[in-house]
């Protein structure tokens, strides 16, 4: 067991190292000179030279990488060339926003998607199914930006129940936090809810026509027990798999949502960094995201190996 975990950790470290090289090189392959972007309106050759010297942009790319990785290993992700703020602070401030947005959207998608999926399957061929299907189609087709603006017009301006923008940490003021996060969560979660609804409906239809459901009915179980205890439980396996696959989309989808609702999350941080060629911030953000993915994979693999010892055989010789 320990040997397997060690091997997986070693592999993860190597992966992260390779990712750091790809990230570093990829960012530098972007068109546009960061010194020019930074100097903006008032660029003189002397100012550009000073900017390049300050951020080591004149150095060989290998030296630049060495400096970056050396600092990163000590937890120093550098300072934003644009704002002068430490990158780790920016990430620390942005991460909770995006995580909360993703969590709320996921919750919404699960509750709405599974609920509507069950209704659509159970009420097959009836108006309830058509409505659920129609809503799912809408959820998949409506552009995020448009939906966001419509919701703001309806629920922040016409009927001002929610706020149009901004973020207040949950710990500071839970009510205000929710007032600001509900609309973005609906916008981000609606697409995922539609996917979950369709998967749930399909899986439930399969389950409802399966033999074990017929047997359960024959045994005289109530409708609630048959649907909730048997059909749904079996259908959830597929749904959960899909949810897992969609998590990545949730994070990337947050980019647009955060722009509409002016949420200072990871998406907004990344976009701002790209447009200003803020290498340090961009490297930090991408590296942190990659590290998180690698860590999750590592944890999942280790968890699998605990559940099913046969999995270890592939890794530990």
């Amino acid at each position, binding site marked *: 067991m320990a040997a397997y975990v060690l091997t997986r950790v070693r592999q993860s470290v190597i992966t992260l190292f390779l990712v750091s090289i790809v990230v570093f090189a990829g960012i530098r392959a972007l068109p546009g000179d960061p010194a020019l972007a930074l100097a*903006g309106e008032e660029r003189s050759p002397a100012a550009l030279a000073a900017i390049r010297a300050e951020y080591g942009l004149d150095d060989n790319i290998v030296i630049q990488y060495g400096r970056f990785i050396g600092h990163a290993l000590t937890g120093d992700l550098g300072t934003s060339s644009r*704002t002068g703020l430490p990158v780790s602070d*920016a990430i620390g401030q942005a991460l909770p926003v995006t995580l909360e947005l993703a969590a709320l959207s996921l919750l919404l998608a699960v509750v709405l998607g599974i609920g509507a999926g069950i209704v659509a399957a159970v009420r097959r061929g009836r108006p309830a199914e058509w409505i659920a299907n129609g809503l799912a189609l809408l959820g998949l087709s409506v552009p995020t930006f448009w939906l966001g603006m419509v919701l703001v017009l309806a629920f922040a301006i016409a009927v001002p129940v929610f706020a*149009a*923008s901004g973020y207040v940490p949950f710990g500071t003021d839970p009510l205000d936090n929710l007032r600001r996060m509900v609309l973005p969560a609906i916008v981000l979660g609606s697409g995922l809810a539609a996917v979950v609804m369709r998967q749930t409906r399909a899986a439930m239809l399969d389950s409802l026509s399966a033999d074990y459901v017929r047997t359960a009915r024959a045994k005289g179980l109530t409708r609630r027990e048959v649907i909730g205890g048997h059909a749904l439980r079996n259908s959830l396996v597929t749904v959960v798999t899909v949810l897992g696959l969609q998590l990545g989309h949730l994070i990337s989808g947050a980019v647009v949502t955060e*722009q509409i609702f002016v949420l200072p999350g990871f998406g*907004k*941080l990344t976009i*701002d960094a790209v447009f200003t060629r803020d290498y340090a911030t961009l490297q930090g953000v991408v590296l942190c995201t990659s590290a998180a993915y690698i860590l999750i994979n590592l944890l999942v693999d280790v968890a699998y190996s605990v559940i099913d010892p046969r999995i270890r055989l592939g890794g530990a010789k």
Partner: protein
Amino acid sequence: MLSTTAGCGSLQSSATEVGGERMTDDRPVRDGGTLTVALNADPDKLDPSLAQTLVGRTVFAGMCEKLYDVDEAGKVVPQLATALPKTSPDGRTVTFSVRKGLKFSDGTSLDAAAVVTSLLRHRDLPGSARATELAPLKAVEATGANTVKLTLKQAYVPLTAVLADRSGMVMSPAALKKYGKNFTNHPSCVGPFKFVERVGGDRIVLAKDPNYYDARDVHLDKVIYKPIPDGSVRLANLRSGDIQVGDQMAPVDVKSALTEPKLQLFNSPSLGYQGIGLNVGNVKGLGEKPGKLDTALARDVRVREAFELSIDRDLINKVVFQGMYEPACGPVSPESAIAPGVAASACPKRDVAKAKRLLKAAGVKTPLKIELKTSTTPENSRLGQVVQAMAKEAGFAVSLRPTEYATMLEETDSGHYDAFTSGWSGRLDPDGNIASFLQTKGAMNAYGFSDDETDALIERGRTEADPAERAKIYGELTRRANDAHALIYVYRQKNYVVAGKDVAGIRVYGDGLVRVKAAGYAK
């Protein structure tokens, strides 16, 4: 330049008409409250020596006063200095006094030594964005506790206007010593509000500064600046009341705001210009000597003139900007208090027949292919499309290439382009709108334009003390720039600021900044 003050005026028609202006709202305000101002971008460093952006200047307007300021008529007036500077007859020595008893937000005192420290830092700090405009400064010394003497390498008339911008901001020497380059995260100046915190990409928070000399006239407790790049999102937030002031609103959003009874509009003419830059000699990149470029546009001035004649400035203003900007055909705004430029009514009209004749005379095979790089904003894309359609009638085949900002800078500076949408937010002194762009060695002469006479006139404009003579020089410079057709001036933006109707006391002047010192919620 008139300012219409309004008791409880909403989106007044004068503010949306070409030539109409509304810069202030002088209703009495009550003490207290927080004002949230939405900016169209996240400011860069909050360090007056290093800062580069217009939005950054707006934040500084709340916390860093300058030796001189601009009033609503576009004139330079003393701010931290006691009076306009005294210049020696040869123009090489400039003296001024600073006000007594002023305190920085960190509680330390402002004196002549602090001014010397700040000016030297602006000039000498590596990467300083102020280095070029303060380059003529040979020496700076404190001749008394509150008097400063500047020695210049040569007469430099734009200096006072320069000191009315970030170069004139005085920073606390104690804070500079304590934080060094990290001053950007702990800025300390003399101003109505002091820096509290910055959350990158989200907000910059300022609070009323009790050390401020005029604190009795500051009414708000707090000002929060929030970057909201998207215009429609800014407008939605104004409507919902989540923000109270929206800076740099686009015409299309202003038109939408007109329907909202809870909002009011301020506007002022801008000092800048927007146009189309043509590559006439940028072969080796910015900063290198212009050379000969083998394109029809670069070879023959008649081709460039034909391109300019194919454009209808009035129609562009009407179609792309809802008629809310102004046609422009020169680097200096006609509203400028120093050497005003060409009035919009005097701009050349579209003349397709003449354009065709010029192309024929130049022996160019039509349609002549030109690639026009535009920025990626919806307005700039529309501008490109209208120019494309207009130029087609004269014999140009314009292809559009929407290019994101950082890439555009790199490609145009290195000379890899035919034409691009080129703009400038503007400076108080005409020199700031001309020298960097049209001087052979200009820091932003991406056009590769080089003309000895122009270079000489720019130098003369800087040293000529007589205002009437200066106006003549800048008139001649404008004429030469227009004859060269390397930078085609097309329109002049106006500064549109939308605010909640319950907000009074904000000031929107020609420099494009929103001043919040006297702002507050109406009684």
